[in-house]
């Protein structure tokens, strides 16, 4: 069962093969050994901030001083934990309200496989927006662990605007405390192979997670997102909304949404949805929402998944008003993604992302 297999104690470290459920969609040969126990991975703190922000302490600590809280893991996360010697730590002080977004930029050096670990600690009742900007060429396995103390709110944004040769395996794990709110937005546009695991678990009632994402795969790209929400305690909420588009030959996306409501998780409220838009032949989107429910005492649980082509009626309507087909398509795609991107409240990033999508659309239809 794919859901329970992401939980700990089930995995002995080994090199995954494509016969394994969790890896069967991933083109392992493209990973440059990130997954291979025989390949040495360099440890490098590749994320960093350019500006200091009052109320936020950013430091680099020894891995042994940064124990892992996550009960969710996968084979590559295990390697990251084992190999990473240093950890980038971001601490937001209790009660601090950081209005300005904290930007963490990735530095890149080479295509040699490397690991990176980051830890984000949100003090009680603190608020912050943290934006990870991934650009350049890299072969990266990383883990970002986020721990939200009581009443805190973290808006976490991970932008994958990689060059076309980048390989990125990532695990973003949040442990959400009592009455804390975790908003995650994952935007994956670049990279040759990107496989991300946004996962959450809860440590207090009233905790809430909103996991959103968009991805746009063009020819030859493999973009994989595996969401895992562990309703391990009662009275927590989760919303998952991912939207993807694919254009071009061998454009490939994989989306899994595993939501696990344990027997003790009474009062759970969850809904997940994934929508995919196929813009050309030869592209393939897999979409697997997966809800495992062990108690009936819940507020609600639902899921939806659609994979379809452009709605011809929408295109006809726009064209019947004089709008040429390519602009009509742009309008619809922009609208499709804008639902999620506009919620970021970061207009510059919104513009940049939409411009890149439009640019890729044009290239794909040229």
């Amino acid at each position: 069962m794919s859901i329970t297999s992401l939980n700990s104690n089930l995995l002995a470290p080994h090199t995954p093969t494509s016969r394994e459920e969790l890896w069967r969609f991933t083109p392992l040969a493209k990973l440059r050994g990130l997954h291979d126990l025989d390949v040495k991975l360099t440890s490098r703190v590749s994320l960093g901030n350019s500006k200091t922000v009052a109320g936020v302490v950013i430091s680099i600590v020894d891995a042994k001083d940064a124990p892992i809280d996550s009960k969710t893991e996968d084979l590559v996360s295990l390697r990251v934990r084992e190999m990473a010697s240093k950890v980038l730590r971001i601490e937001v002080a209790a009660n601090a309200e950081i209005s300005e977004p904290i930007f963490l930029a990735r530095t890149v050096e080479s295509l040699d496989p490397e690991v990176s670990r980051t830890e984000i600690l949100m003090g009680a009742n603190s608020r912050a927006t943290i934006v990870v900007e991934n650009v350049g060429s890299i072969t990266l396995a990383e883990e970002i662990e986020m721990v939200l103390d009581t009443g805190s709110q973290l808006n976490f944004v991970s932008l994958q605007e990689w060059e076309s040769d980048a390989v990125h395996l990532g695990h973003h794990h949040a442990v959400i405390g009592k009455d804390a709110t975790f908003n995650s937005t994952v935007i994956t546009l670049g990279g040759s192979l990107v496989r991300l695991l946004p996962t959450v678990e809860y440590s207090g009632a009233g905790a809430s997670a909103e996991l959103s994402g968009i991805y746009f795969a063009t020819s030859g790209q493999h973009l994989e997102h595996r969401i895992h929400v562990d309703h391990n305690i009662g009275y927590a909420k989760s919303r998952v909304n991912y939207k993807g588009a694919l254009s071009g030959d061998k454009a490939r996306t994989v989306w899994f949404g595993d939501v696990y409501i344990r027997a003790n998780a009474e009062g759970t409220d969850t809904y997940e949805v994934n929508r995919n838009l196929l813009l050309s032949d030869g592209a393939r989107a897999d979409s697997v929402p997966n809800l495992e429910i062990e108690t009936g005492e819940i507020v609600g649980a639902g899921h939806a998944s659609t994979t379809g082509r452009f709605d011809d009626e929408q295109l006809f309507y726009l064209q019947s008003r004089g709008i040429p087909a390519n602009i009509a398509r742009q309008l619809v795609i922009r609208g499709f993604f804008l639902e999620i991107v506009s919620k970021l409240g970061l207009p510059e990033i919104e513009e940049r992302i939409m411009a890149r999508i439009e640019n890729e659309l044009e290239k794909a239809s040229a």
Partner: protein
Amino acid sequence: MSTLEIKNLQVAVSTDEGMKQILRGVDLTIKSGETHAIMGPNGSGKSTLAYSIAGHPKYTITGGSVLLDGVDVLEMRVDERAKAGLFLAMQYPVEVPGVSVSNFLRTAATAIRGEAPKVRTWVGEVKEAMASLNMDPAFAERNVNEGFSGGEKKRHEILQMELLKPKIAILDETDSGLDVDALRIVSEGVNRVKQTQDIGIMLITHYTRILRYIKPDYVHVFAAGRIVEEGGAELADKLEEKGYAEYVTA
């Protein structure tokens, strides 16, 4: 001065059982300044006629021609038809999630006029047109037709007609789903366009009610895929009284 000439138009749709002929030779000429009402039973092919002229991909033209000022419309792409001056107010306007009305209107006006309308005058133009159709300005920020009530969708269609200034407009049951006040407001909108723009109108309707506001010059009875009778406004009253029995059994 424009003329839309529909000559012996034959149209089929593909169904699971193969091609099904819907239009069986429609002849109709509409000139600027004229209003032609089309009335006919459900399923007789009125919307098929409207959509075929607009270029909906679902319909296959199996014969005949449609000319706008002598130019073959059926050879044009859908957007080219709109640019040439055709407009279809749809019976069931389509929801376009994620695209705001204001963005949509501006993009359409830019396409049809060949240049982006000047921001300052455009905003005023839209506001004024919305106000005269009793549309809340908040609609501009909503997504195209998304969650609009039936009547709101119809007003939005007429709003587009006012702004895009077509030569020939086809209104497919624009009156259906309108309350009494909305019917008057929408009719006034159509009449305003008739007065200020030299427009020809094909008005598809089931009810004489709208014809009290928008006076037709001609009434055509449509049955089984063709026009079976033509007359003046008095023909509509006869239809209201007697129905279509004499046309469909023929």
